[in-house]
C-alpha cells in the first residue's frame, strides 16, 4: 500500500524526483515502465504475432479492420474513461448509445436534415449525462448505482416511446460515412473519424482545463476543493461529455449498420470498461491517459480479430479475454512497481 501515497502524474506513473539526478538508462527504463507505453508496444507487436493464428496476417486489411471496428470502442471508452478518471462509472452507457442511434434515425425519418438530427440526438445524450452529473455532484449519490438507475429509466422510456418501431434506419449520408465503403485520400472514412475523434478527445482529456480539473478531482475531491477547483461543475461537465461520447458512438453505429435497434448499446458496456483498464487507467480514478485508452481499445479489437481468425470456441474466447485483462492489470502493476523502485 505504501506506493499509493506517492504522488502520481497524469499518465499514472509515479512522479520521479528531479530528472537531472537520474541517469539516462534509468529514465528510459521509467519511460518503458509506463502503462501507456506498455500497451502500445503490445499493440504494435500484436500485428506480426497475428501470423501465428492466420497465414494471411499481418495485412493491410487487418490494420484497416482494426481501425474501423476499433472506432466505436475508442469513442465509448473515452466517455467511460473520463468518468472513471473522476473515480466514477457510467453504467447508463448502453442506453445512451441507443438513445443517440434512435433519436438520429427517428428525427431523420420524420424529415429533419441529417445534421439537425445528429445535433439534436447529441444534445439529448448530453442531457442524460447532465442528469447523471447533477445526481453525482450535488446529491452525492454513488455514480455506479446512479448511472445504473438512470440507464434503467432511460431504457424503459425508450421502449415506451418507440412502441412499434424499435428499429430505425440510418440516413443515407450517415451510412455512407461510417459503413467503410467510402474512402478519402485512399483511407476509409471511419478511420478519418477515428483520427479526428481521438485528437479532439485527447486534447480535452490531456490538454484542456477541464481535463486537468478532472485529474485533480479524481485524485482527491477535498484537495481539489482546497485548491479552488470547482468540483461540482467539473463532475457535471465530465458526465455530460460522457453522455455526448456515448451518443456519438450510437450515431456512428447507426451509420455503420445503416440501422439500429434498442439493444445496440448492450454489447459495449463491459468492453468500454475493459479498454480503459487495459489502457492502464486506475479504476479508482485520478490516473490514466487517453493515449493508453486508445491503445487498450485497439488492442482489444485486434485481439478480437485474431481470436476470431484462430477459430476458438466461444467459451475459450471468453477465458482468453479474462486472462488478457488479468495480464494487463498485472503488467501495469509491475510497471508501476519498477517505476517506484527507482526512487
Amino acid at each position, binding site marked *: *500500500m505504501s*506506493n*499509493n501515497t506517492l504522488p502520481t502524474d497524469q499518465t499514472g506513473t509515479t512522479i520521479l524526483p528531479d530528472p537531472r539526478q537520474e541517469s539516462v538508462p534509468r529514465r528510459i527504463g521509467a519511460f518503458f515502465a509506463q502503462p501507456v507505453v506498455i500497451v502500445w508496444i503490445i499493440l504494435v507487436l500484436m500485428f506480426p504475432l497475428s501470423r501465428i493464428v492466420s497465414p494471411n496476417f499481418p495485412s493491410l486489411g487487418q490494420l484497416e479492420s482494426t481501425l474501423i471496428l476499433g472506432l466505436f470502442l475508442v469513442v465509448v471508452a473515452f466517455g467511460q474513461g473520463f468518468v472513471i478518471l473522476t473515480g466514477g462509472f457510467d*453504467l447508463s452507457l448502453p442506453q445512451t448509445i441507443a438513445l443517440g442511434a434512435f433519436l438520429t434515425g427517428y428525427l431523420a425519418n420524420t424529415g429533419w436534415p441529417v445534421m439537425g438530427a445528429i445535433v439534436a440526438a447529441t444534445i439529448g445524450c448530453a442531457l442524460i449525462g447532465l442528469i447523471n452529473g447533477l*445526481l453525482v455532484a450535488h*446529491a*452525492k*449519490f*454513488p455514480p*455506479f*448505482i*446512479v448511472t*445504473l*438507475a*438512470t*440507464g*434503467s*429509466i432511460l*431504457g*424503459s*422510456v425508450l*421502449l*415506451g416511446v418507440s*412502441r412499434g418501431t424499435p428499429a430505425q434506419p440510418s440516413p443515407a449520408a450517415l451510412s455512407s460515412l461510417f459503413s467503410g465503403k467510402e474512402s478519402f485520400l485512399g483511407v476509409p472514412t471511419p478511420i478519418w473519424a477515428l483520427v479526428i475523434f481521438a485528437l479532439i478527445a485527447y486534447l480535452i482529456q490531456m490538454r484542456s482545463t477541464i481535463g486537468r480539473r478532472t485529474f485533480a478531482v479524481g485524485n*482527491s*475531491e*477535498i*484537495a481539489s476543493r*482546497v485548491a479552488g477547483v470547482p468540483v461540482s461543475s467539473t463532475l457535471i461537465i465530465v458526465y455530460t461529455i460522457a453522455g455526448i461520447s456515448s451518443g456519438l458512438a450510437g450515431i456512428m453505429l447507426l451509420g455503420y449498420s445503416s440501422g439500429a435497434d434498442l439493444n445496440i448499446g448492450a454489447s459495449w458496456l*463491459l468492453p468500454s*470498461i*475493459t479498454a480503459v*483498464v487495459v489502457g492502464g487507467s*486506475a*479504476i*479508482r480514478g485520478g490516473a490514466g491517459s487517453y493515449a493508453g485508452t486508445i491503445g487498450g481499445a485497439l488492442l482489444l479489437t485486434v485481439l478480437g480479430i485474431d481470436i476470431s481468425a484462430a477459430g476458438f*470456441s*466461444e*467459451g*475459450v*474466447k*471468453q*477465458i*482468453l*479475454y*479474462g*486472462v488478457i*485483462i*488479468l495480464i494487463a*492489470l*498485472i503488467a501495469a*502493476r509491475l510497471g508501476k512497481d519498477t517505476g517506484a523502485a527507482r526512487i
Partner: protein
Amino acid sequence: MTISTISARRRRISGELVAAVVIFVVIYSLLLAVAPFERNLYSFSNFVVLMMPLAVAVIGTSTVLITGGFDLSVAGTLGLSNVLATVLTSAYPDMGVPITIGILGLGLVVGLFNGVLIVLLGLQSIAVTLASYICMTGVALILLPAPGGSVPIEFTSMFKLSVGGFPAALGALIVLCLLWAYLSRTRFGTTLFSIGSDRQAAVISGMLVRATEVGAYAFAGVMYAIAGLFLTAVTASGDPNAGFPFLLTSFAAVALGLVSFRGGKGSAIGAVFGAGSLIALPKLLFGLRIQDFWSGAILGITILLALSLPLLSHVAKRRRRRPAAAAVTDTRSRKDLADVE
C-alpha cells in the same frame, strides 16, 4: 479509528437497516394490498424460494462493498455453480451432498483467488473480478454449451424443503443473516468496517487488514456458490448464461438495502431485504397492472429514492444540531483531508 467512531458507525448501521426493512415492508405490504392473489402461504413460499439466489448473493456483494471493494465475480461464480451443479448431479444423481460441498469449495477458491490478486498484488477489485467473471463465463460455456440437464428431484428438494407450508429456505436465509450479524460483531467484522471507512487507520491500529480483506472475498465467493445452488433448485436445470442478470441486479439490491457504495457502512442483512424489495417490485407493478415497459423506469426511480433516504436523514440531523454540522464529514472527506495534510 476510536471507540467513539465505531459506536457511531453501529448506530448508523441500524438506521440504514431499518430503512431497508421499511422499504421492503412498504413494497411487500402494497403488493399484498393490491394483489389479493398474493395473500396466501403458497405465494409467499414461492416468493421466498425465488428471492433466495439473489438474497444469498448480495450477502457476499455487500460484504465486499463494506471493505470498499467491488465484486463483479458474483455473476461468474453464481453461473458456474449453477452449471456445475447441473452437470454433476445429472451425471451422479446420488452424490448430492459431496457435489454441494465441492461447489462451495469452488466458490471459496475463486474468492481466494480474487482476494489474493486484489490484496497482495494491489490490483483494482472491479477489474480483477471483471476478469474472473469473464473467465468463469467461458468455463461455464465449455461445460454446458446450451441450457439443459436434468437435475434430480432429490437435489432440488434439498433446497426447496417446506415445513408445514413454510419454506425451509427462509430458515436458511435467517441462519445466514444471523451468521453475518455475528460475524460483524467479531474482530473480523470490525476490521471489515474499519478497512472500508479508513484503511490507513486500520493498518496503523494493528488490525489484520490483508487477511481480513482476502477473507471478505472468500466469504463472498462461498455466498455466490450457495446462491448458484439455490438458483439450480429454482430452475432445476443449468444455463451457461444464468449468472449474467445478477451482475446488475445484485448491485441494485444492495442499493435498495442502503449499503454504502463508498465502503465502511451498511449491513448485509439490509441487502437481503433489498433483494426482497427487488423481487417484490415487479410483482407489485404486475398487481397494479402498470404497463410493462415502465417497470424499468420505476425500478430506477425506486433506487434513486432509496439513495436519497440517507440524504434526507442527514438533512434532518443537520437541522436538529446545526452547530455541530460543520464537524460532520463523511469518511471519504476525512480521508481526503488526510491526504491534503
